């Protein structure tokens, strides 16, 4: 189980420690810091110190290092740490050193509420929010005036109910239920434009503001699409197994209802192509770069927020390019070329070309950069997934319902 937690800032200072069992001296973090010095961006998540195990995650510029003395499931710890950061973000809208420092007491109270003796106690945000009210200016002023505190003195109702994720007595004037179907395309495209691997990571995020205890059923047109699904605990798995519908009593507010994975069995449509030509040696010391981007299999939708990111080989000193659309920048230190294209309006295809200056005499062989592609396609779920209907039981009012689809690039690489 988790014995202690240390939060470390980028310069290697431990600025928060919390112990759930006996105190472990913070010097144990040296093992982490050592690993961090060795490879700043690639610290292995599980480290062994002589008497402890350090399991860490890095998010938002801070590192959370959990220390355990015994055998423990590392994923359990990692999941928990991510949950801690999620909670902080939920409470303080961000998780940075400054914000944590500004809210030390609430952070400390939260950590104490989330874990007891190393066992998770309450991690559901709605329960936590009932126990410890998130700070906001209005409440702080009100508390000072009325002498009330931001710690609740009654046991949250959700803590032990069969639906721990939902608090009771929710009331809204406007009852709304919105669903966002977000699909991220992860792909590797090789030099010749052929797809090496492609998969879709999809999510259904909800924003549900419904009074009472609504029982919802979400039906898909084509539920057989999914290779793998994982659900929020509220989803009744039995009904999914037998009828392929999502039946659930939703938590209040924003949450991720489901995530799914498509790819290994079905063919994934690739909505964009990049034609690229990079020559580093071109008679003189100038190389040439020519890139064209265009839509492909987008089912009539427009590509938006298109951006290309290329990590150039070390020998490239600078680039002087002209783009017919968007802006480009090249950072000679990190060697990253960024071309921000924006929306692709047919029939004009965005193109960028120009010369690349290469360090003279540098070795140009064996350096194959990769293009990292970003894009979004609104109103399209590239897998073809469609929600057919949403039904509500257990409440009398008529809610306002909405489904939005969007496709984005996940880890989308084009090899050059």
């Amino acid at each position, binding site marked *: *189980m988790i014995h202690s937690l240390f939060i470390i800032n980028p310069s290697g200072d431990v600025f*928060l420690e919390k*112990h759930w*069992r006996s*105190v472990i001296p913070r010097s144990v973090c040296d093992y982490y810091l050592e*690993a961090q010095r060795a490879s700043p961006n690639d610290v*292995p*998540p*599980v480290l*062994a110190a*002589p008497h402890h195990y350090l399991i*860490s*995650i890095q998010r938002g510029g801070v590192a959370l290092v959990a220390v355990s003395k015994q*055998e*423990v*499931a*590392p*994923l*359990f710890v*990692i999941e928990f740490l*991510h949950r801690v950061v999620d909670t902080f973000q939920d409470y303080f809208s961000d998780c940075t050193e400054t914000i944590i420092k*500004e*809210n*030390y*007491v609430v952070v400390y*109270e939260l950590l104490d509420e989330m874990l007891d*003796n190393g*066992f*998770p*106690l309450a991690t559901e945000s709605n329960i936590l929010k009932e126990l410890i009210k998130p700070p906001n200016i209005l409440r702080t002023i009100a508390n000072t005036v009325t*002498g009330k*505190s*931001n*710690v609740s*003195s009654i*046991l949250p109702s959700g*803590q*032990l109910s069969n639906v721990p994720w939902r608090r009771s007595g929710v009331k809204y004037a406007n009852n709304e239920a919105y669903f966002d179907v977000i699909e991220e395309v992860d792909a*590797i495209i090789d030099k010749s434009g052929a797809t*090496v691997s492609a*998969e879709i*990571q999809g999510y259904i995020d909800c924003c549900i503001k419904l009074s009472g205890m609504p029982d919802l059923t979400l039906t898909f047109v084509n539920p057989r699409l999914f*290779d*793998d699904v*994982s*659900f929020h*605990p509220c989803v009744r798995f*039995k009904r*999914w*197994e037998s009828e392929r519908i999502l039946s659930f009593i939703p938590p209040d507010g924003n949450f*991720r209802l489901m*995530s799914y*994975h498509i790819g290994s069995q079905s063919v994934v449509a690739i909505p964009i192509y990049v034609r690229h030509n990079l020559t580093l040696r071109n008679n003189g010391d100038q190389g040439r770069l020519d890139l064209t981007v265009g839509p492909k299999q987008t089912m009539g939708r427009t590509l938006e927020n298109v951006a290309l990111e290329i990590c150039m080989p070390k020998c490239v000193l600078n680039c002087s390019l002209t783009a017919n659309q968007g802006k480009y920048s090249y950072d000679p230190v990190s060697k990253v070329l960024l071309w921000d294209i924006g929306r692709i309006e047919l029939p004009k295809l965005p193109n960028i070309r120009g010369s690349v200056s290469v360090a003279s005499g540098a070795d140009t*062989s*064996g350096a*194959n950069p*990769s293009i*990292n592609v970003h894009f979004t396609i609104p109103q399209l779920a590239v897998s073809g997934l469609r929600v057919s209907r949403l039904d509500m039981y257990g409440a009398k009012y008529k809610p306002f319902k909405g489904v939005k689809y969007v496709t984005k690039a*996940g880890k989308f*690489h084009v090899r050059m």
Partner: protein
Amino acid sequence: MTDSKYFTTTKKGEIFELKSELNSDKKEKKKEAVKKVIASMTVGKDVSALFPDVVNCMQTDNLELKKLVYLYLMNYAKSQPDMAIMAVNTFVKDLPTYQLVKDCEDSNPLIRALAVRTMGCIRVDKITEYLCEPLRKCLKDEDPYVRKTAAVCVAKLYDISPSMVEDQGFLDQLKDLLSDSNPMVVANAVAALSEINEASVSGHPLVEMNAPTINKLLTALNECTEWGQVFILDALSNYSPRDAREAHSVCERITPRLAHANAAVVLSAVKVLMKLMEMLSDETELVGTLSRKLAPPLVTLLSAEPEVQYVALRNINLVVQKRPDILKHEMKVFFVKYNDPIYVKLEKLDIMIRLASQANIAQVLGELKEYATEVDVDFVRKAVRAIGRCAIKVEPSAERCVSTLLELIQTKVNYVVQEAIVVIKDIFRKYPNKYESIISTLCENLDTLDEPEARASMVWIVGEYAERIDNADELLDSFLEGFHDENAQVQLQLLTAVVKLFLKRPADTQELVQHVLSLATQDSDNPDLRDRGFIYWRLLSTDPAAAKEVVLADKPLISEETDLLEPTLLDELICHISSLASVYHKPPTAFVEGRGAGVRKSLPARGTVSEDTQPQLQTVIPNQESLIGDLLSMDIGGPPAPAAPAAPASNLDLLAGGLDVLLGGPEPAATATTATGSATGLLGDIFGAVPPASYVPPKQCWLPADKGKGLEIWGTFTRQNGQMRMEMTFTNKAMQAMSGFAIQLNKNSFGVFPGGALAVGALAPGAAADAPLALAAAGPVQRMDPLNNLQVAVKNNIDVFYFACLIPAHILFTEDGQLDKRVFLTTWKEIPAANEVQHTISNVLGTADSIAQKMTLNNIFTIAKRNVEGQDMLYQSLKLTNNIWVLLELKLQPGNPEATLSLKSRTVEVATCIFQAYEAIIKS
């Protein structure tokens, strides 16, 4: 208004300021002051001086203030368990206790739970006693929230005082909570029990799971929180269902967990399923269904955060080794993305090699080639090695792999070339006489090699194919110039390579071989090198024909998957999926019965784990580090037997001795028992006079006088009337008296430790004394190699001496090793065929009956005897002191001196030592 205001200090001194604020009359001010105290505590400032003042604030009905004070209390109760500060005066000491006990009775469940939580953190015995009563009440509280908090408190209390928890009956109360109506309470009770089991002093689980409990847990599983599900699944993984039907039903109830959003739940479910699948026969439909269902969630874990990916990949590595079918179609998801963290890249690569097969090799090779041109050096190296592994694993692809490697060598990127040469050496070994045409290309790169491994590999290639390389002598000669600056690995290779060259082309290389032999034997400090030099020298000078047979012997074939984990270790690790053990691929230290009931989970060996923190160190290509050992055994290990008789008798001893030293192999018990020599014979007579009930191997010299500074120890092991003994004879061959004898045994596989002190007084010069030592077998366990190895330290007034001996397995056979006929039959069937080992014993004398009788005297019980087609079959069982059951079938044919022995056990590692024991007993 933020908390940073709490850090502003004033000139008067913070502590002073806070003290006065804490004692203020105004509630609001008090609260602010406590908050300041907490804030200081968070950053690690010492505010213990304020203890009395803070504790004073405890009597309040303001919940936030109460919580803050409790936070403070818990923190200091942990950091200063002696509570020096608590003892300031009695009032202060009693106050928290009083208040806590009072709060345990509060009408608000939140306060009751808070009090019971805080209580568990106060690690002072006196106070703990006070808290037993309230805890007992809270365990039966009407509010489940209080009950679930109290369950955790029992685990806390166990940490402080295990005896108190056992004496006060808290364990039983905890067990009762397993059937609580609230799933969250059940989950916490399970978590607390698991932790107590793990920490249990005796090493045995305090609470065993039975079918009804499991049923309750399975019900709770569906309803409790995600963390509770992890606890319950982990507890389920320690349970072994009675039969396949039960396993089947458990599997079905767990499968839905694979669709959970929490990765920890998914992986814990994978663990239980992988374990239970073992119980189902492979043909059943369910195994197929499960295999199909396991793949997608494992793949999905790879789209999570990189940390999750890493842990998932380490576990997938185990799954792929155990059941390659599950992910065989999922190769693509393991393709590396260029911005994956390096630790993820290396793991993915590892799994890619494991999944490589003829069907997907083209794709894999294309990818590997791509990776070999990346920027990260470690990754590129591993990719190059992976190409070599593919060549060895998928034979039809070897040609393409070799040409890919050649292309990579053409890039002239230094580290790529070096890695390529290392793997090409392996390819040569796997496919002899096939790709040697590329040697010339390799030789072109000779000058650029600067890493010992690559140099050693190149030297090996030159030596091995000396007859095809015209200028082999020149090449090797150029290496010899800097002989002493080379790494030991390279030096050894050079020595062997030059000898090979000489044997192949004796005419023009005599000078060279003499040069290298003198370099190795005269100018080197490295004993390995010197010994090998001497052996070669002696071989070459006495019998060149034998030398040829030895040095140019056929090499054992290189296996396809040398990087696989040992099957038993793999099985054990499968039981530990999702735990740290699975990330490190190290077994829990203890040598425990396979995966029977109550597998104890413990940490991987501490000392060795740290080296393995970098994942790239372990795994993959086999003979990198073992290169020396490998070649050694290849050159001399195999054939010395035929070679030796050819050599003149005078050299035989030296050679044999040298080989033993070099090979460092253990002296097997078999040779020991048949050892001749006057001393053994004499001692044997003593025993011969009164035939012992059980077989006693003759005494062996454990510590020769020249190593023991005059102390000589002969010894053997016996078992009589259920008592294991070490029978030793100490002889003082020194000129001075010895005294103050003491003995210690290192941790060993069977947990054998001295059951008493050593009864040897002073020993005058020339005197000898018998030193029996009773042994017990429940001590600390550490896996040894060979399994029955025992390291002993004997101390006297002169020095401490260390030696190792082998425990004959039969002394570990317990008296209660007789199985019921039916149980024997079912157990035999239950143990998978993979756990069966066969062994042939030659020169067996006596009839089946006399053998059975002999066996019974040694606690090997004959369950049944049958005559099948003229063969006598004896079915026997035995049990080791560490509760490992071994079932045996002995096949005897009258008139045939060879007997076949088949052994089945859940822990087959013990087979070797049991076979040795069998041979010894049968021949006694």
